[in-house]
């Protein structure tokens, strides 16, 4: 799949890996998955006639929280689906991974696609849905093709389709590919997109559990969330909870990017110290000092490196430290990085990806980007910092979807923690760190 070879082995997922256990990059086919114990959870459900309610109770007990960003308890979400609804119900997998820094769903899908299929079949059975879709990010075309192949294998083996494993339950699962719109990761935009429309988020309520795909009850979960389900069914909710921490069950795949020696995906128990995770990723690149970390994808607050070095990687610990675990995308920045420049790039992203429906988001993201750009290029004014904060406050909470908040959060947190860098840029019209500042000094001399 790659045109160039990585400078390191990208397939080291960690000793505690559950979802990626035994995965070596080549063994993605059905026979390999079965050899690893795959589809045993599904067989167990049918052999032991486990009732849907009992499955949902088990998932609740596991304290599995949604891996797509919000960390919502999965069992609770599943219980919102109307039990006795007479018509069609849907389950949808969100593989539209586009949150900057997140690249775990791509690895799950290309290296272990059947674990997602098995998780979705189990979810569909638990919620009484007979049709499902997996929405795959447009830029990873080869992953979409591989998933189609895996679906064909599962159908041929009787794990998917009519009368699964010869029983009464039928479930049709299809892949849908995106075509380059970050906002389609938002679950209602994603549903609009499957319906063949522009991917613009819907007003909520109603929530997808009552009005989802084609107006029918629908549950949307992240790829990694579904991938965790077979293990829970086989080993029990309590065992899954034990892998992590109370209220933070299981393992989590963290996508490590930025200034680390070995960027890549690492699956660890929730509650693992950040320092240990950093070590798995080979430590800081070039042995430089850590300055800042965004622990959960670009929409989450940045934290100073020294705070992260004392923080554990679980939902509650990161919240206590002042950020959020989000999608598990850990973006690491070292001492040579200019925080103004980093924020400028993120602000451009939200400006570019706003769907334009809400005025505060459409106008506000442009305003934020232009102001940060002005500061970066040495044309900032002292009052800009306060204006940035007040514009951010005016976007957050006033929009249809959370992209507005996502644009405001980096701005506020970068200024909160690295205000002196912004002030220096404004006052001296140049950077106080890094090669850029040095280069400009040289040019000026």
């Amino acid at each position, binding site marked *: 799949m790659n045109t160039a070879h990585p400078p390191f082995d990208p397939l080291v997922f960690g000793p505690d890996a559950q979802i990626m256990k035994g995965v070596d990059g080549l063994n993605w086919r059905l026979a390999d998955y079965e050899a690893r114990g795959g589809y045993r959870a599904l067989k167990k459900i049918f052999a032991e006639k486990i009732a849907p309610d009992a499955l949902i109770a088990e998932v609740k007990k596991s304290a599995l929280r949604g891996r797509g960003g919000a960390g919502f308890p999965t069992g609770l979400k599943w219980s919102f689906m109307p039990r006795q609804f007479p018509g069609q119900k849907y389950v949808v997998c969100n593989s539209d991974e586009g949150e900057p820094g997140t690249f775990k769903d791509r690895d799950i899908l290309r290296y272990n696609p059947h674990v997602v299929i098995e998780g979705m079949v189990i979810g569909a059975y638990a919620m009484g849905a007979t049709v499902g879709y997996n929405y795959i990010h447009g830029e990873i075309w080869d992953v979409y093709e591989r998933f189609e192949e895996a679906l064909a294998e599962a159908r041929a083996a009787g794990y998917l389709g009519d009368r699964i494993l010869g029983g009464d339950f039928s479930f049709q699962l299809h892949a849908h590919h995106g075509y380059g719109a970050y906002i389609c990761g938002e679950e209602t935009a994603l549903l609009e997109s499957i*319906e063949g429309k522009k991917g613009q988020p819907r007003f909520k309520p109603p929530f997808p559990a009552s009005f989802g795909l*084609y107006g029918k009850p629908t549950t949307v979960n992240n790829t990694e969330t579904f991938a965790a389900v077979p293990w829970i069914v086989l080993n029990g909710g309590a065992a899954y909870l034990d892998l992590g921490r109370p209220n933070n069950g299981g393992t989590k795949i963290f996508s490590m990017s930025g200034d680390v020696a070995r960027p890549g995906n690492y699956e660890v128990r929730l509650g693992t110290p950040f320092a240990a995770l950093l070590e798995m990723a080979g430590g800081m690149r070039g042995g430089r000092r850590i300055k800042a970390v965004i622990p959960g994808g670009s929409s989450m607050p940045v934290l100073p490196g020294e705070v992260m070095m004392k923080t554990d990687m679980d939902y509650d610990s990161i919240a206590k430290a002042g950020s959020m675990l989000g999608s598990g995308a850990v973006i690491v920045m070292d001492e040579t990085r200019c925080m103004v420049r980093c924020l400028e790039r993120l602000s451009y992203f939200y400006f570019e990806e706003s769907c334009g429906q809400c005025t505060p988001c459409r106008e506000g993201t442009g305003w934020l980007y232009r102001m940060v750009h002005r500061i970066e290029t040495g044309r900032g004014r002292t009052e800009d910092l306060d204006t940035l904060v007040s514009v951010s406050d005016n976007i957050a909470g006033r929009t249809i979807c959370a992209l507005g908040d996502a644009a405001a959060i980096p701005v506020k947190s970068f200024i909160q923690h690295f205000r002196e860098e912004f002030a220096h840029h404004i006052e001296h019209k140049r950077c106080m760190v890094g090669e850029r500042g040095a280069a400009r000094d040289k040019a000026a001399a």
Partner: protein
Amino acid sequence: MISAQGIARIDAAIAKYPAQERQSAVMTALAVAQEEHGHLSTEVMDFVAGYLGMPPVAVYEVASFYGMYDLEKTGRYKLCVCTNLPCALSGAVEAAEHLKRTLGVEFNGTTPDGRFTLKEGECFGACGDAPVMLINNKRMASFMSPEAIDRLLAELK
């Protein structure tokens, strides 16, 4: 307007959705159309609208909303390089500069021989492989150091 093979791919997409929801196949239909025609002209979008029973304007809306559709002609190879922060921290800015210098174009520019169009992309969900580049929407090229870029460009005739 679209080859028999292309129509078969569109029909396979239509079959994934409820019978009355042919519109759900519009993203696949436009992707197929773009693969065959290089970009999406009004005529080809009107054809898709007719085939799926959609108002043409609904098809135009979809085509202009999603970033990977091209409404304008591009070079034979559309090179899209991700410059978002995680990639930028691992050499994406240098990769983009190298591409601009080698090809002699800025972002959104096409080389005079019509071979390459250069674009700036947002996160592909492949940041661990940075710098990454997407060729004609389908082929992801990973770890694009300047040397790897030179090798790749030589291969794309």
